[in-house]
Structure formats: C-alpha cells, structure tokens
C-alpha cells in the first residue's frame, strides 16, 4: 500500500507540472493584463504620471518578459519559497490573501458536504428499501425540489427568514461586532449561528443528486443473492441491509470524494456572493475579472492540486473499503 501511494505521488509530479503550465497559459490568454485594466480605470487623469507608473510596474512584475521567463519566475518562487507572488489588486502577497479565507472555506465546505452526505445517505437508503412507497415518492419530490430551486434564491429566502424571525445580521459568517475580533467562544458561537444558512443551501443542491445515486446503487445491491443468504441466516432485516447491500453501495459514493475536494474551494461562488461569505469563491471570481494574474493562477493551480489529492484519497479509501481492489499486487494473485 505504501509503495502504491509513493508511486502515485511520484506520478503526480509531471501532472502537476502540466497543470501549472496550463493554468499559467490560460491566465495569460485574455488580451491585455492587469495593468491595462488598471490604466483604463485611471482614465486620462494625468496620463503622463500614469504612464511612468505603469512602466515601473511592468518592469517590477516582469510583465514585459516573454511567457517562459514569466512562468519560470512564478513557479520557481512557489516551489522554493512558497511565494505565490503579489496580488496586483490587493497589493498584498497572494498567500496571505488565500490562507485567510481558506480556513473558513474549508470549514464551511466540509461541514456542508458531511451534512449533505448524511442527509442523502439516510434518504437514499430509505427510498431504496421502501421503493415505490409514499415515503419514497415524498422524499424524491423533496430532493428534486431542492435541485430545482436555484441556490441564490434559497439563500435569499433563508436570509430573510433568519433576519425577520431570528434577528440575525444579514449575510456573512459573522455578526459585525465579531467581524474583526480575535477568536473566542463567542465568535465561534456566532459563526455557528450564521453557518446554517450556507450549509443548508449548499447541501440541498448536492443532496438531490446524491440521493438518487445512493438509491440506484442500493437498488442494484438489494436483490443480490448475498442479501438472500444473509436473510436465510436469520439476521434482522435492517441489520443485514446495513451490513451487506449498503456497504457495497458505498463504493461509488467514495469515488466522488475525488471531485468534491476542488469544489470545496471554487464551488458555490454565487451563494458566497449572495450571502457575502468571506470564502475563496468570490475572491477567485474577482481575480479572474480584473486579470489579477498571480492570484487567479494560484487559485487554479491549487484546484488542480486538490483534484489530484482528492483522486488519490478516494483511490486509497476505496482500496481500504473494498478488498477486491488491490493496487500494489498487479498481476499476482
């Protein structure tokens, strides 16, 4: 197993290199760069000073250099000193900008993903075991409604409810008094009170699809002969369903871990904008629009890395869950 993981990590390196190259290339594809946007914003008001200023900036950031030189500067700084470059727009190092928001994003994403899995898992199992019952139709209906309602609308409605009936401040993850306060029990509780809206909004969207996946998987497994074998042993119905078919229906669930990781960062941009959440989504959106090249590039690179890590994680999890999958014993059984 360890050998397998080591080999996989090694193979990841060239993939990473290609991803970084591609992301840097894509960032530079749109005509112009941040300075063009910047100059357009400054307008004609003292054009001469601006031109000198711009030239200085261009020099400083190496924007007049050819592609490969720029790329080399960017990537070598990341690899050697973890320096992701400067954000033009925020005039701060990219890393400080990202890490700030990353913790909250991760927290929000992990909580809502777990919540979604929990809900989808229970409902999916129920609807499969009681296929075509009233309960099945009811929960399927609820799931599809959740899928059909646009996230931002649900976010607006929940925000209204929380403001109108619970008297909470609108949007964000913190009340104004805690916004810049250091971490404390009070702040944590405040975060908790604000978090349920985005968690519900994000989870309902994903739950519908996951319920259907779980239901379909489980329906396949429920009528397999080993279920009958377990029944013939005299096991209790719910216990045998949990031990055998549910266990086997989990595999496709696990495989999706790979692509949930990157959506932790990029996902739910619209919800984050509507709810004014201090997460990475809106930051990425803004960086892309203003051609804040190092910031956007770092994001995209990070998404690539997360995808790779996620895939590796789900492969390892699968091997751990399903003894039929043996990675390191290729061809010898």
């Amino acid at each position, binding site marked *: 197993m360890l050998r397998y993981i080591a080999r996989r990590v090694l193979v990841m390196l060239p993939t990473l290199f290609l991803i970084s190259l591609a992301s840097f290339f894509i960032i530079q594809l749109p005509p112009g760069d941040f300075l063009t946007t910047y100059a357009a914003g400054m307008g004609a008001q003292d054009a001469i000073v601006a031109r000198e200023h711009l030239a200085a900036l261009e020099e400083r950031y190496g924007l007049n250099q050819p592609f490969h030189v720029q790329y080399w500067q960017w990537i070598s700084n990341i690899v050697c000193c973890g320096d992701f470059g400067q954000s033009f727009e925020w005039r701060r190092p990219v890393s400080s900008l990202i890490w700030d928001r990353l913790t909250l994003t991760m927290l929000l994403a992990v909580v809502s993903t777990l919540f979604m899995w929990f809900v989808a898992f229970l409902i999916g199992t129920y609807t499969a075991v009681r296929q075509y019952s009233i309960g099945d139709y009811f929960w399927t209906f609820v799931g599809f409604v959740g899928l059909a309602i646009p996230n931002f609308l649900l976010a607006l409605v929940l925000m209204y409810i929380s403001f109108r009936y619970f008297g909470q401040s609108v949007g964000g993850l913190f009340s104004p008094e805690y916004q810049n306060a250091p971490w404390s029990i009070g702040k944590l509780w405040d975060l908790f009170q604000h978090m349920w809206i985005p968690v519900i909004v994000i989870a309902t969207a994903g739950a519908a699809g996951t319920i259907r996946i779980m239901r379909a998987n489980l329906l396949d497994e429920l*009528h397999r002969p080993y279920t009958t074998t377990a029944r013939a042993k005299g096991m209790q119905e719910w216990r045998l369903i949990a031990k055998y078919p549910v266990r086997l229906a989990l595999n496709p669930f696990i495989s999706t871990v790979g692509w949930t990781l990157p959506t932790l960062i990029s996902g739910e941009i619209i919800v984050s904008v509507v709810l004014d959440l201090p997460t990475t989504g809106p930051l990425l959106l803004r960086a892309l629009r203003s051609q804040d090249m190092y910031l956007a590039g770092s994001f995209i690179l990070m998404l690539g890395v997360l995808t790779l890590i996620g895939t590796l994680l789900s492969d390892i999890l699968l091997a751990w869950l399903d*003894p039929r999958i043996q990675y390191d014993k290729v061809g010898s059984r």
Partner: protein
Amino acid sequence: MQAAVGADLAQDSLLSVRSLKTQFPVDQGLVKAVDGASFEIRRGSTLCVVGESGCGKSVTARSILQIVDRPGRVVGGEMLFRRRLRNGSALTGEEEIVDLAKLDPKGAEIRDIRGRDIAMIFQEPMTSLSPVHTIGDQIVEAVHVHENLSKAEAKDRAVDVLQRVGVPKPKQRFDSYPFQLSGGLRQRAMIAMALVCNPVLLIADEPTTALDVTTQAQILELMHELQADYGMAIMFITHDLGVVAEMADDVVVMYLGLAVERGDVRSIFHNPQHPYTRALLRSIPKLGLGARTGPRTRLDTIRGMVPDPYNRPAGCPFHNRCDEFMPGTCDRIVPPPIQFGDRREVRCLLHGGAEEDTR
C-alpha cells in the same frame, strides 16, 4: 406460540408442505410460482426436488424459509415443521409443531428458525457470499445471530466447521475473501456457514450446478458424510437426475408449481407414473451396452417449453406437452392427487380423478 398447531404430523415427518401457494403479483399479471405443491421431508432423509427451470423449485425452497423476494408472498397452504424446543440455547429434547406458512416473514419467530433449525445453501457460491466480507466474518455472523457466544468461541466453532467441510488450513482461510477461493472451496465455506448452528434441515438449492463435475462429485460426497454426522434432513433441489439417483431417499417431481409425482427414489426411477416423470427419465443420455438400441439414436427430449407463467394452461398444466393427452379431459380438469402405496402420490388423470369432474 400462536403458530403452534396440533400434532397433525406423522412421527417420522420433519416438514410437511401441504397445498403450498406462493404468488408474485407483478405489473404483467399474477405469477403463480407455486400452486398447490405438497410433499413431506422425513427426519434425517434426503428429499430431491426435480423439474425443469422455471417450475417453482427454488421458490418452493424459499417459501419454506419465507425469504421469497418481493413482491412474492406465501398466500396459502400449510408448512408444518417440527421444531426443537430450547431453553436458552440448550435443547430440551421436546418438540413442537409450527406452521411456517402462518409466520410473519419479518417476524422474530421465523428469523429464529432461519439459519438455526433450517439452513439454506445456494447455487452460486460467488454471488451468494458477500464479496467484501471475509468468509470467517460471514460464518461467525450466523453463530452470533442465534447464539450467545464470545467472539473467540464463535471463531473456534467456525474454524471447526470449516475443517469439517474439508477446507484445508481453515485458520488461514477464515480470513480469506470469497474471491480468493476456488468455486469448490467457496461452496464448502457456504456449507460451513449453513451447518454452524446444527440445523435439522438443510435446504440446498442446486448447490453443485455452478461447479465442474469433479468438484460436484466431491461436494455431493461431502453432503452425504455430513448428513450421516449431523443427522440432518436435506432438501436437495436439482435438475440433474444423476444427482437425484445418487442423493435421494425420496423424490418430488415438480411441474409449473405443482408436485406432479412423489415417492421413494426407487419407485420413481423404476416405475414412474406421471408422463412428465417418464419424459424426464427418457431424456437422460445413457452410456454403455444398454444404450445400443440402434446405430445412432437421438436423445429423447420433452417437446415444447415450460409455458409462460402469466398464461398457465387450464386443467392439467402439462397437457399441452403430454404424449398421452386426452382431449376434453386433461385441458379441463386439474388432476387431484392420487395416492397409491407407501408415500406414493401422482397427479395425473390417467390414474383416475377425471370422474370427479371439475372442481
């Protein structure tokens, strides 16, 4: 016990199935998979159930344990079973008679019988064992469901049974997954799982069909030995008449959910009464001197196919394939069971029953 009934059961009889009806209400119509089958299983003996595919053998077996897949359900008949009474997990030596047909398929009472008094093994040892649990885990589970043993005791018991069914290195095999075993070993593990609670009746649903001939012979031999050791009765479902000749004490011939003929193995083979039984026996390929009736004779087959289950023929279910079809009688009257001699019964209008007219 609400399901206990009066002693309406012969002393040597372990399970008496009477007019069993199991039906599947599906969208296309009502499938009467078992439609009035009757037979007896005697203590410690082997009953073979034979018939073509789709004639309700497996459903009959599953009906006994009330594990018919949804939407199937036992809708009528009786299944009187002589159950050993227990005080805790020790046998008291006394018995009571339970009607399995009256038990709730999800109830605790039938669950207590499943795996403990009546165990079952299945056709495909690969798909009938969970691929992601070790065989040890699956065997030990059967112990834990019924008996209050510690983990170590249950494991010892499982290893013992594995050894008994001829699994080499049972301690190591205990931790094997089904895909790591050969087909024969898998079926042995399956048998071990069924025997681990010492059942009085083992239902074997075509246990050798998926195996090659050599392995098949070994498994049959093993079942013979185990029956002698454990003293259990076996209900053996097969479509292989060679296996029947080797295993059976009694035989039930099933056709379209009906037990058309039953009796001891000798009289069934030497003196078959039902045209279907005769046709089945004629369709066995013969080797050796006796087979040389001509330079090249074609093997007899039964013409036609088992009818569509949604569209059962009226009267005798076999009439449209029968060589001795009597128009106006066989397609009108459902043949009543006709007894003759010891445990011998046939449902064919050739032997009478036509006078009693329609039911």
